């Protein structure tokens, strides 16, 4: 193989193929950016959802949990926490989350530990709203089952 390809041919494959790949990827990016608002229900991002995302980020939740499958694999998936832990009931989920956050860290020897983050009531509420919004994103029916 390598004898028939000259350096010039290889360079042309690099420039031609590279440029083609960049153009395709750029085109798909533009299209994706246009479609994301509808797929994610962008209009449902309230101030509380946005604040909840900041709570999520400022406490580095993704350092243990996954959200839509991305993050660390030390603690459960939270993209569908609303369905799994709140049975898709907003009030039930918020009550559950407030209780859960207040109870950390659990006193079970050598169970994986979640730190106490000292969140205010409002922050927990924001976080819940963020997770509820996330759970409604149209993401090709992932995860396969309720366990995440």
């Amino acid at each position: 193989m390598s004898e028939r390809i000259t350096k010039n041919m290889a360079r042309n494959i690099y420039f031609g193929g590279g440029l083609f790949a960049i153009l395709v990827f750029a085109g798909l990016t533009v299209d994706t950016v246009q479609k994301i608002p509808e797929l994610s229900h962008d209009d449902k991002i309230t101030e509380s959802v946005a604040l909840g995302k900041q709570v999520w980020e400022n406490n580095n939740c993704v350092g243990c949990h996954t959200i839509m499958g991305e993050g660390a694999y030390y603690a459960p998936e939270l993209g569908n926490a609303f369905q799994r832990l709140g049975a898709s009931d907003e009030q039930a989920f918020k009550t559950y989350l407030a209780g859960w956050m207040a109870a950390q860290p659990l006193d079970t020897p050598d169970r994986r530990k979640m730190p106490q983050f000292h969140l205010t009531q409002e922050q927990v509420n924001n976080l819940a709203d963020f997770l509820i919004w996330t759970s409604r994103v149209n993401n090709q029916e992932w995860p396969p089952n309720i366990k995440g």
Partner: protein
Amino acid sequence: MKYSSQMVAKPYFIFALILLAGEIVFGLAMGAQYLYGDFLFPAIPFNVLRMVHTNLLIVLLLFGFMGATYYLIPEESERELWSPLLAKITFWVFAAAGVATILGYLLVPYATLAELTYNNILPTMGREFLEQPTITKIGIVFVVLSYILNVTMTVVKGRRTTISVILLTGLFGLAFFFLFAFYVPENLVMDKFFWWFVVHLWVEATWELILGALLAFVLIKTTGVDREHIDKWLYLIIAMTLISGLAGTGHHFFYIGTPGYWLWIGSIASAAEPIPFFLMILFAFNMAKNRRIQHNNKIALTWAKGTAIVGFLGAGVWGFIHTLAPINYYTHGTQLTAAHGHLAFFGAYVMICFTVISYAMPILRGRAHGNGVKAQKVELISFWMMVIGMIGITLALTAAGIIQIEMQRLPDSAHAIGFMETQAAISSVYAIRLAFGLMVLGGLLTYFYSFFVKEAE
């Protein structure tokens, strides 16, 4: 050493190796926490350990790339580095910023660190691998720009080779895509989409260009094969990198709220991603077979072949295992992802750093023909300890992932086992993983020892 300014590479190499030791120690601590949840808790919770572990990796690779560049660019350009002083300043600024950031992670809660560094003005924190405070990110931009300026000026004023131009292309790409780290929209889906522009387009596009260039350089030096021949291979490798790797980003856009066509595009394009890594194996072994000189630094060539093979296994094979959308539906976000991540980063990027260091360090220490036979023997032992250790970790995590998928993902909602119960069932596999982790640390310590082996004259 042909040019005295190549000497600036030395502190970069040494610091990269120290950071690697730190990375492994924190990895071991995480491995222990997987088994004993109370280990180091609440002093250092898991998310902090992980952040330190992954950030040390990224920073050590950047130090490794910088050191490698400063070493090879003068030789490629046939002139002294444009500004050795700037390279020295860049080193200290980057090292100080890195250490300060790690201390920040360890000494205060993350939320406090966000507050202290005014994250609210330009929020960029709290995203996987990009946890650094905004001020650190800005610092990284300046460090990288001064580094690129230095390299560009050297290349422009000297001889231009395929290797140096491709290396520079990779560096410009690295700098450009890092800018997406500053874009954090309110919409999580949009956020995730562009987050991959940093993460994927670093490791599966621009860094591969850097990897290819560094590998080509060491192969030229240790085999004496004709440049025309090497250049041709290099072009083919990076052409396949871009063709498969750019659209291949799509394998991250399956289940995060992006359009469904990515299921097809991501699967097809990323199925081709092992090709450039496979070409690297052919490249390394072909050049070694057709070598024109017998370089005394045999271990450098061993690392070069090793990085090609382990990079192909980790990035190519272990990536391919779960890159097709219907499979990824079940594997997404399981320990299988961690298995792939570990072997890919080690094989492709940590090992290319070892390759360059193994080639360049003896020369920087005044041994033009490489270390003595004894030292190389010790280094070879360290090579195998680290490689076997990492493959062991990868196999253990793969087993963990398969069990996790079987218990937690495959059954329907009524029959699937929950996350925590599944994890408890896997704990013995995590113990095996930790044991292999200790072997990697042993390998690195052996590697350090090889620097101090005295030769009987």
